């Protein structure tokens, strides 16, 4: 099964991961994605009927702890890395638009 991933699909997945891309980049990625996905289709050869998907890798037990408040990073310290902040908050433009 050969799959082509057209530029429209590339633009769509780019938006899903919130990545701006140009028409030219979409062209390049489209060609590369098709050959990579084609290679992955090799997995179709493997019979996986009745094979459970891997879910855990290490300790399969739940790890619980007491729900107690402990000191954490101060607000001032946290905001040191924020590109923009105001009155102790991270500042961003409109999140809920008027559409």
């Amino acid at each position: 099964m050969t799959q082509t991933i057209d530029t429209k699909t590339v633009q769509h997945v780019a938006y899903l991961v919130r990545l701006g891309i140009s028409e030219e980049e979409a062209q390049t990625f489209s060609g590369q994605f098709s050959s990579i996905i084609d290679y992955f289709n090799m997995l179709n050869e493997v019979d996986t009927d009745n094979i459970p998907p891997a879910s855990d890798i290490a300790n399969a037990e739940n790890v619980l702890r007491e729900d107690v408040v402990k000191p954490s990073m101060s607000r001032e310290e946290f905001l040191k890395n924020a590109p923009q902040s105001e009155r102790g908050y991270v500042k961003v433009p409109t999140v809920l638009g008027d559409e």
Partner: protein
Amino acid sequence: MQLTNLTICEAHELLTTKKISSVELTQAMLDRIHEVDTKVKSYVTVTDDLALEQARKADERIAKGENVTPLTGIPFSMKDCISTRNVRTTCSSKILENYVPQYNATVTDKLADSGAVLVGKTNMDEFGMGSSCENSAFFNTHNPWNLDHVPGGSSGGAAASMSASLASFAIGEDTGGSVRMPAGFCNVTGIKPTYGRVSRYGLIALVSSFDCIGPLARDAYDCATVLEHIAGHDPKDSTTYQSPITNYTQNINQPVNKLKLGIPKEYFVAGMEAGVESAMQEAIRAYEKLGMEIHEVSLPHTKYGLPVYYLLLFAEASANLARMDGTRFGLSVSENAKDVIDIYLQTRHEGFGDEVKRRIMLGAYALSAGYYDAYYLKAQKVRTLLRRDFETAFASVDILLAPTCPTTAFKLGEKTSDPLEMYLSDIYVVSTNPAGVPAIALPAGFSNNMPVGMQLIGKHLDEQTLFQVAHAYQQVTDWHKRNPEIS
């Protein structure tokens, strides 16, 4: 005596007998970095002042004889994806170019407690995505054995810093061979421990279910020393094992003659460079002489390791990298942004390199409606089969031997135009990560004047046997003692 070439063990002996001081050793390392790293380019950040301050403190500890560990006063490098408080941590990405963490990774804290001296942060493929270090957003790192060749990746800076004697040990991180593959290319010993052995707290995540922090050093003994100090349970990482850490070095000299060595036949197929093949045969003969029983074994799903690894990587990485959004830390591009989505789109467009863009988009594709079952779920099922392969093999042998790469280090630029071709260079190292088992890479000879790496793969949580078997080989060979002439 050249201070920069000492093993941890040798340096520790000289430090505790007061023949040298940590300040002298650290200064020698920094001087060499400023002289040689202009060519090798293994470091993104060199922490001169911090290193000398830590070295002075280590000397005080040694003078007082208080709390001296085998790592006290020893200079090391850290891969730039591991958080260091007040020291820039970039993942070799533009998006984190000026990011200075407010907290330490658990590994950073543990090394500081042991008295080790951080001399700098090493270059890598951006967010660990690559096999040659050429995906660093800043510059290429060069292989110290031939500057026209790549050091491997993604811990290319870590391996090059060891190989060029610019650190006494290096902390790397292995998601799908990122410690072992560059260790092999640069003639260094490096271990990917069992998943869950070393805390991932403060490691900037690539694939949360594969990522393993591990040391690179001059020999297996030194790797064991470092792992003893960084491994163990951490309440901040619930995937770490509760079981106590063995004293690896204490038992490293145990004889290996009762152990069974498995040779996975699927790893010895066409496409392997002749010099790599003959080095492996020689290593097998060396183990035979050491009295080990050699058995051929089969890991039938080996060829599917690569698609399983990459599909799951794409999926997990696309989720993990969602946090790089230009609002709370890191690069933020907000010119004319009319809403917050515009900040995401612009910041990520400018901040990520092509390989990162490719992988997070393919991840979203593999997880998206209509493709989830065919790609993500299918890969998780085949991952179960990969794990079973190892379980079956380890029912009849104690340890497996394979090359780290089908070839020696390739040339800079040789594989950059074809992403799939680059992925194929990881073919021997990727399967261990989806399975979670530990593996150690070590020098096994040379082919066309470039180092050949071999890896030993062990049972879950059995780093002890890996160290023993690697150490036994290093007692009868001297490949690991060879250093490059950097020109």
